[in-house]
């Protein structure tokens, strides 16, 4: 155990003393921390365009740079301000003719144009349609109301009282007894992405460290000096701890800085950064577990090649699995109680993100969490032992990358 401590300390210091590690950690944490303090110095609403002190002005569209032209062929739209009431961000102006409207849209002088053919028919003109364009939806609403008003007028019905009768004000008091998927979605999405990035980034780092020892021929000295299992486990765990320290410093700085300045942000980032403690604990446990699971695999993959440029050849398959798990989990976030995520939350290759997502957003029993965690821990031990054997087997095998099947064959023979 003493030797394990010596190797662990040496390997950890290798990471921590590394200039790029220190610079990256300090700069990212500093920048992220400073950003969280920004609302103390400037009005954050002016930056994001969400000024919380603004009072909605129904006629604000009149001052807008964006203009929508309307040409009424039917003669039913007598008052243009009626349409303006529906468009708060655009100025509504009348066009003198259909050609003028089309020309101005084509020349990009106005953002869009409507030609009203009758009470139930209109043409919409736009040059480049954006993905979030809702002008047609709003204009259809305008025409619907116009139709209703004309109908009431023709039949001697008071439109105002009819509207009130058909649209009574309903008060709803929301009481969420379980989890609010809407608000949990974003931080869950963010954390799944973070753990994915940590695994890919630091896994490659551990693989590189193993391959470097092989390429500079240090490995033979090491494996003849100390038990390979100790060497491999200490090496991988040191890489894992270095990763956790860096992630904890960065994430911790962001979370603490945000907590300090939460009021100043007006809760704007709550959906991303206001993460409940129990979710953070599950994220930490499964995240660390998943990370260790993959880091052991990366370490073994590093031993299969003798040049750092070949690491992608041996670790490519692992990266593919990690990416597939990532996309499956993200796709399942909208249905966290579905069968797919239930299955993946028990598999060691995917439970690190799937089980965490279920805990954060879905319904999950305590026994399920415990069983999944036990499977994950057992898998880490098994993968660690097999990884150490591959590491040992790959010690003096230089040249072309060793195929995984050949590696298992060699282990079996020994």
């Amino acid at each position, binding site marked *: 155990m003493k*030797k394990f401590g*010596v*190797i662990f300390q*040496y390997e950890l210091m290798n990471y921590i003393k590394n200039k790029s590690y220190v610079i990256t950690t300090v700069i990212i944490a500093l920048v992220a921390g400073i950003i969280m303090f920004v609302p103390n110095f400037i009005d954050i609403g002016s930056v994001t365009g969400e000024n919380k002190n603004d009072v909605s002005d129904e006629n604000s569209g009149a001052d807008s740079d964006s203009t929508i032209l309307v040409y009424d062929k039917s003669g039913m739209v007598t008052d243009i301000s009626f349409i303006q009431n529906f468009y708060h961000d655009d100025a509504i102006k009348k066009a003198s003719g259909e050609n003028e409207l089309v020309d101005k849209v084509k020349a990009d002088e106005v953002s869009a144009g409507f030609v009203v053919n009758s009470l139930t028919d209109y043409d919409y003109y736009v040059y480049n349609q954006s993905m979030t364009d809702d002008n047609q939806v709003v204009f259809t609403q305008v025409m619907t109301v116009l139709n209703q008003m004309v109908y009431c007028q023709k039949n001697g019905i008071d439109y105002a009282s009819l509207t009130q009768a058909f649209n009574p004000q309903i008060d709803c008091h929301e009481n969420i007894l379980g989890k609010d998927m809407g608000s949990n979605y974003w931080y869950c999405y963010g954390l799944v992405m973070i753990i994915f990035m940590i695994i890919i980034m630091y896994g490659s780092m551990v693989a590189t460290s193993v391959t470097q020892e092989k390429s*500079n*021929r*240090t*490995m*033979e*000295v*090491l*494996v*003849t*000096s*100390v*038990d390979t299992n100790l060497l491999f486990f200490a090496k991988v765990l040191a890489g894992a701890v270095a990763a956790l320290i860096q992630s904890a410093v960065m994430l911790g700085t962001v979370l603490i800085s945000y907590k300090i300045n939460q009021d100043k942000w007006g809760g704007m980032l709550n959906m991303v950064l206001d993460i409940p403690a129990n979710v953070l604990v599950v994220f930490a446990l499964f995240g660390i577990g998943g990370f260790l699971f993959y880091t052991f695999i990366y370490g073994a993959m590093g031993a299969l090649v003798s040049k750092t440029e070949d690491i992608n050849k041996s670790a490519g398959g692992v990266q593919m699995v990690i990416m597939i798990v990532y996309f499956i989990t993200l796709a399942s976030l909208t249905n966290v109680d579905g069968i797919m995520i239930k299955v993946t939350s028990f598999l060691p290759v995917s439970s690190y993100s799937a089980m965490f997502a279920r805990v954060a957003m879905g319904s999950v029993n305590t026994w399920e969490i415990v069983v999944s965690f036990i499977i994950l821990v057992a898998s880490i031990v098994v993968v660690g032992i097999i990884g150490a054997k591959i590491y040992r087997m790959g*010690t*003096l095998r230089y040249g072309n990358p060793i195929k995984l099947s050949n590696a298992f064959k060699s282990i079996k023979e*020994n």
Partner: protein
Amino acid sequence: MKLEVKDITKSFGDKQVLHGISFEVQSGRALGLLGRNGAGKTTTIRILMDVFRANSGEVLLDGEKFNQRKHLIGYLPEERGLYPKKKVIEQMVYLGRIRGISKSEAVANSKKWLKRLGVLEYENAKLETLSKGNQQKVQLASTLVCDPDIVILDEPFSGLDPVNSRILQDVVMELIGQNKIVIFSSHQMSYVEEFCKDIVIINKGDVVLSGDLDNIKREFGKNQLVVSAVDKTLDDLENIINEHMSDILEITGRTKEELIIKNVADVSRKQILSKFISENIEIERFETYKPSLNDIFVSKVGDADEKEAAE
């Protein structure tokens, strides 16, 4: 302590590279492992160090199965390797500690060996900034940092200039004097000859000769003489012996200035001399043949190769 290698075999895939290697070495004695490139020396050493597992056979220390982790071993692998971007002292202390000595001991030993090998001034330099020869010395110092009981050096002289080779020879002599087991492989016979009590010659995975070097030399030179004549070339002398003295002498080889002859009829030296005189040969040199290790090596490895070619 007595380290015994008993009948080890090793195959890589379908190719068998060791066919039953056996030898033994004791404390205070150095064993030279000799052989041509690819003979199986490094594989044997790697099996000794448990880098490879033998297919059969065993390695014993004082009659017990040799457990490398329970003993302090200084191993200098053929493929030299340390951390190029690390400071010399830093990695030496690390290597000492993972072999089981304390930090303070590792620091003291590192400085001692760096000083002994004349590279103490580089203790805080990164390894990659040192010359190849100095890196080699650092590697040797790292091998000895744990004050090992067993020292295994694979081709320790390769890459060293004559001055550094001399320093290494002195170090090896010191280790032998400290009653340690020293095993090393080398192509340079002169070094092996100088301080090895025992030798093992491996050829194509077989031990072709092993034992006490003095005895081997004595046995190899038994009934053999070196002879040269005044005013006669070696070719002339060889012709005379073949034509007139083949009943008692056989030519077994030649050095630069002498013929090596074997007394095949077990006659006395006086009779041989009389024969030369009767042939009117004026003898310049006539003495017992003392073979060099190089002669023995070439003879044994050459014989084995010739036999194989004949088969």
